[in-house]
């Protein structure tokens, strides 16, 4: 791994904080049951490797994803969040991902506005047949977040121990 030989990996939002050696990001993956979860299943059954940094949660639809989920994930263990759903037009519930798309954009922009790097919150459309695409997406998200360093913003444990 090349990132380890770099001199110091710092948190992009707080450059004074250095990542511990051999730091690995934790990524919260929130996948829709009908497309992306099946897609990730296909990735596994096709024996395609993807980084183990992602922790997957299954939701019925991408419109089930309350922006609160993203805030909660980022405030607990996650260094980044990936939300994935069906392609527009393919939603099992017909219009769910259209509603979700609006919420995602506003949430992403708001979190970026208050100081999170925009790559910490990522979205993708992955269908049930796109196993290789899911691996590609997870690879890209993991790489992005490895560059950003650990997240030290508004973490629950940092403040509650005081």
């Amino acid at each position, binding site marked *: 791994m090349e990132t380890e030989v770099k001199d110091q990996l710092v948190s992009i939002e707080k450059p004074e904080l250095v990542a511990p050696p051999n730091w690995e990001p934790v990524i919260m993956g929130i996948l829709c049951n009908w497309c992306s979860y099946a897609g990730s299943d296909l990735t596994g059954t096709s024996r395609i490797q993807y980084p183990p940094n992602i922790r997957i949660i299954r939701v019925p639809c991408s419109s089930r994803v309350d922006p609160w989920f993203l805030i909660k994930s980022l405030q607990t263990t996650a260094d980044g969040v990936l939300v994935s759903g069906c392609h527009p037009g393919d939603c099992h519930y017909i219009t769910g991902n259209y*509603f979700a798309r609006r919420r995602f954009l506003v949430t992403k922009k708001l979190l970026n506005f208050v100081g999170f790097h925009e790559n910490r919150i990522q979205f993708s459309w992955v269908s049930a047949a796109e196993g290789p695409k899911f691996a590609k997406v997870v690879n890209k998200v993991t790489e992005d977040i490895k560059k950003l360093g650990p997240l030290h913003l508004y973490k629950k444990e940092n403040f509650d121990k005081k």
Partner: protein
Amino acid sequence: MNYTKQIQDIAAKLFAEGKIDVFVGYRLNGFDDNQVPVLITDPQDVCKLVFTDKSVFNLVNYLKTDHTRRKRVGLVVKGCDSRSLNLMLTESQVKRENLYVVGICCEGVVDDAGQKMQNCTECVVPDAVVYDELLGTSGRDGSGRDGSGRDGSGRDGSQTHPYTVNVDIAALAEKPLTERTAYFEEVFENCIRCNACRHSCPLCYCAKCCIDQETATLYNGANTTSAAFHALMTWSLHLAGRCVDCRNCEKACPSHLPLHLLHKQNESVIYENFQEHLAGVIPDDRGAFYKYSLKDPDDFIM
């Protein structure tokens, strides 16, 4: 802008005709020329009512209380207040037939320092959009509203009114990420979690707020920077596409946090991407998150 006499007359007339049980208005606070909201149930107290450019609060907020619920209420609304009233009507929180609305063609209200408030200098809907009776000269732009939210030509507010990005948002958006991070950390650190923003917001009417639920939230009422972040982000996202920029939350905040930044940011994103703004101007319009378009931007999604 002084409608004290007219409002007193209207309230007295309504009580005499037996049309209302309670009138919600403003009165002087008794110390200086600042005003506080007042709920009048006795016709003899009508003389307490005032309305000047110091009438800053959003009285629609008082439709949430037990003093007004299931009663016939008369109330005074400015332009921004009437939009929040419109949203409350759309979301079935109050019944139109129980209300007698005195609309004001607002010329802007002033803060404690006597300066015109920022949202009033940027205001594009100064006239009340819901009313039974309208005081003042209608239409700063001469459009002449008929109380249905649409102007004389049948167009809605988003078409007739241009959108300008709030100056604070534009200034902050240009700053580098680390500066924004530091700025907002200070903002959230100064929050004392009194929840006055939530209680002062007319659109935060849930009987049990999700932030107060012990199992659903991470914090359970803790007063820390991260808890404030959690609560304020949730709150602003619940109001995204619905906030009418009355700034009742900022007026209520004891720490003087720039809460409008969160709302205006959401508003600017919604306008730039979905071409919607001015929540509550059109009746039965539930805001940007209750609808979708096939042309919504998709480029931020992999």
